[in-house]
């Protein structure tokens, strides 16, 4: 009995400290400035424990029942604290109020535990023994928790599951107490059922903890999320900060409305403005309709075929008000035909020639996307390109991913095309690269459509000039059977992100 009681003290002390450490670590992780976060959280927590201790005086009867209830409550609140904080950070604007509110609540509950337990033990031991033993085991539990937390829990379980695990321990202590103090609890069935239910809830959290973590982390965008949508192929997130709308696919920024015009004008106009007779245009990828918006500025263009894998994406950009405003309802234009198919397969299975082809795929960060940057793919595209037509390819950054960029150029050359590499500065991306390619020589255009915000006729020739730190490097072309581009790309972005 005695040993069991002191083990209880030890465990609840450990749990109490873990919640404090979780809150401190999470706040440091999310907000930075760990000195401030830990100081304010420890202070708030200790102060709240003081409130709890003071409140314990108002509990006069049913001390044991109250103790068990508090254990269950601490278990639930403390156990889910990390998860609640994560979700509050990603999906609300009120992280700090939630943080300090939660720390205060847990502190009060934890502050109630020890005084109540001491009162329960008062009848069994002398006062001096109660104080000495309870405080001794309290501090031992604190030491154990403070060592376990950095050495075992965070590396092995992560913050969310560590908190859930200790929540579960609190609940187990509560359940165990109903047996320990069974003589003082004639009607303990209800308490036990509550304990089992709490344990189940925490257990479920523990089981699905990883999925929830991923979900919560995916949502960690700098700006408020206005739309989150899972399609068959990707997770689409749209964020908004003042007038800047940003689109993320699987966590990667695709555009920021503040400067996307630079990207899309550069992608379309150097090529299309040089083809005054272009009637048939094909866009591969680019389901956001922003390249199509630029293409529709040419009155001679009769048809625009957009082939994008993801129906979720093209539907979104043909229906959401903010996005329709951004792409000028391009996808609803009668000249535009939207096809949801894999570009490689579609080109392989369809006839049709185009005067201008825009290739706007995500960066080649994996083998699936890498296929769409191979010589086999460009050879297929070439079969659909009119003799005097051009294609324009988004080709990642020649500055951050120099080998990747020049590998794309080499691949287009390997497919028998003349290449004209160029680059522009897009603030939210940095220095960005494109390649114009075709079977005939390219001459920069002498005129551009009205109303462009970035490009001028005079500026275009300058885009084809590469400074020393972005100039061509010797690289291999990308083929289906080597996928060197994916390897270049991985190496280069890893080096940047280190």
């Amino acid at each position: 009995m005695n040993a069991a009681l002191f083990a209880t003290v030890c465990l609840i002390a450990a749990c109490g400290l873990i919640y404090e450490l979780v809150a401190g670590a999470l706040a440091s992780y999310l907000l930075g400035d760990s000195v401030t976060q830990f100081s304010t959280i420890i202070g708030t927590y200790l102060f709240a424990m003081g409130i709890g201790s003071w409140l314990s005086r108002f509990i006069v009867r049913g001390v044991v029942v109250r103790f068990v209830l508090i254990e269950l409550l601490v278990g639930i609140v403390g156990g889910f604290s990390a998860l609640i904080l994560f979700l509050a950070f990603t999906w609300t604007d009120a992280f700090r109020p939630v943080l300090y509110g939660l720390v205060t609540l847990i502190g009060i509950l934890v502050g109630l535990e020890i005084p109540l337990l001491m009162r329960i033990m008062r009848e069994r031991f002398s006062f001096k023994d109660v104080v000495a033993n309870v405080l001794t085991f309290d501090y031992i539990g604190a030491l154990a928790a403070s060592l376990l937390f950095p050495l075992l829990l965070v590396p092995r379980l992560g913050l969310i599951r560590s908190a859930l695990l200790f929540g579960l321990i609190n609940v187990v202590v509560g359940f165990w107490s109903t047996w320990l103090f069974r003589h003082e609890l004639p009607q303990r069935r209800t308490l036990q059922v509550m304990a089992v239910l709490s344990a189940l809830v925490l257990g479920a959290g523990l089981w699905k903890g990883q999925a929830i973590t991923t979900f919560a982390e995916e949502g960690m965008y700098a700006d408020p999320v206005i739309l989150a949508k899972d399609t068959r192929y990707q997770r689409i997130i749209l964020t908004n900060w003042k007038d800047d709308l940003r689109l993320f696919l699987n966590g990667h920024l695709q555009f920021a409305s503040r400067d996307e015009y630079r990207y899309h004008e550069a992608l379309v106009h150097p090529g299309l403005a040089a083809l005054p007779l272009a009637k048939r245009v094909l866009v591969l990828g680019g389901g956001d309709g922003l390249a199509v918006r630029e293409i529709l500025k040419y009155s001679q263009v009769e048809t625009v075929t957009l082939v994008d894998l993801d129906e979720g994406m093209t539907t979104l950009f043909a229906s959401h008000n903010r996005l329709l405003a951004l792409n000028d309802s391009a996808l609803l234009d009668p000249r535009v035909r939207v096809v949801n198919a894999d570009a490689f397969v579609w080109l392989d299975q369809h006839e049709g020639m185009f005067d201008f082809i825009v290739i706007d795929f995500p960066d080649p960060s994996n083998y699936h996307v890498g296929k769409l940057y191979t010589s086999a793919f460009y050879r297929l595209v070439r079969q659909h390109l009119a003799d005097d037509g051009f294609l324009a390819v988004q080709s990642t950054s020649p500055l951050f991913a120099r080998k990747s960029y020049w590998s794309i150029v080499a691949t287009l050359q390997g497919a028998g095309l003349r290449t004209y590499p160029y680059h522009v500065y897009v603030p939210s991306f940095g220095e960005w690269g494109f390649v114009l390619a075709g079977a005939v020589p390219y001459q920069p255009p002498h005129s551009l459509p009205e109303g462009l915000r970035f490009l001028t006729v005079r500026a275009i020739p300058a885009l084809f000039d590469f400074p020393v730190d972005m100039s061509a490097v010797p690289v291999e072309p990308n083929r289906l059977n080597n996928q060197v581009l994916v390897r270049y790309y991985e190496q280069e972005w890893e080096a940047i992100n280190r």
Partner: protein
Amino acid sequence: MSDNSGRSSRREFLVRAAAGLAVALPAAVIARNALGAATNTSTETGAPALIGLSRKGGRPISGGFVEDDAAVGHALRDGRISRNASKREQCRARVVIVGGGMGGLSAGWRLDALGMRDWLLLELASDAGGNSRGGANAITRYPWGAHYLPVPAPDATHVRTLLHEAGVLADDGTFDERTLCHSPQERLWQHGRWNEGLEPLDAAPAAERRQWERFGAQVEAWRATGAFRVPLAGAPHEVGGPAAGTFALDNISARAWLDANGYSAPTLRWWVEYATRDDYGGSLDQVSAWAAAHYFAARDPEEEGPLTWPEGNAFLVRHLTGRAGDRIVTSAPAYAIERVGPRWRVRTPRLDVECDVVIWSAPLFVLPRVMPSVSVPVQTDYAPWVVANITLDRRPAEHGAPLAWDNVIYGSDSLGYVSATHQYLGRPGPESVWTWYHAIVDRSGPGARRWLGARPWSEWRDHILADLSRAHPDIAECVTRIDVKRWGHAMARPVPGLLARNRTLSQWSPAPRMFVAHADLSGFSLFEEAQWHGVQAAESAARVLGG
């Protein structure tokens, strides 16, 4: 016994009851159905945890054994084949080719090239192709045997001619990029994760790495001798020729050679045995050290990667059978070849063909059963194989390098699996077919075949799932169907003494105006060997007929 079965049926009942419960429970699913919003996919994703539970409770996996040639083959062996004379048709051809594997198809292909179009090919099975047959389902085509072709050396003329004809090799000597195996080609499961490439060198100790380096140098030395060529016939194998230095390797098994040369590293020995099982269907004990060396030294190490198709080498079969048209007769087991004056009569249950020349392109062991007067001067050890095509409706969980074309589990007694959807150009969906290969090397020939004939499909199913579950713990929840093909005599095994055996065969002819076109003449089963002998037999036939 009865107690046992009682228990198992009770367990099955409980499992089924649990499954029923799990399906009945998810209110979300029922509500969606009521709203009419549920399609098949949305009910599946509606309550994954609960549906997952029902699947764990015993997801049904369909399948069974697919047709193999054992029944007809055994009837032929035992003289039980139906000789229904009343419906028998008669016809004539200048050449009859018996057996529609790669040897026979190549013989017909070469006869056409020589302007000798009057030939007829008789195939025992319902499809031509032999070890290069394939199948198909709603998801993809898939192989039942040989599934790739190494990029041929510049002097492999016949292979190159065929590939050029099939549109795989362009005029400028480049191979169609779509047909070369796409990246990532290979991965190996070792130490709890997938690693790119097949060599098990992840975390290998320095001492083992030194052995690997020494072995690499040895392979280079072997390659330099010129003794190891594909097809074999091009190599200088005459006694006293430049390659004679390698012949000592042929007197011992691969294991004896590894032992004698101090190759003790477990990773290296696994690697070499993986190679002998994969190409020859034999263990280190069964295969000649010369044959093992051939596996490593015969190919250029810097090749562009193999040529492959979703259906494997059935692609080549399709090309060859397509151009042959109705000159290929399937389900026509030749059970007797008789002399009729200066000519031959080849008899099948529904058709007798009279011809001037017979090209025998079935395995050598079958020949004496069809022509009791012939005795083959060598013994051939045949490796039994099992190939399974596994249909998946979702991607299994895994850890490490992404799904490759060839996926091998270190330490497994299988050879791993090949993804039939790997060469798909678009973004792959969750469905796929994996072809799982297993050479039976731990039992002797006839015993292994009896065991293979008796082992039920359910044991193969469990064996395959257990094997794959090492790398994919949830594999049983992703598989909908497992079709198993048993190959009793899949391929000749190159046991020690291979070169002497082949020399004996090169001097041998079963009968006048009869030629053999089969990889058995090389003592191991590679496309290039079968094609080489097919071409040779066709040329011999043309000489006889022309002269």
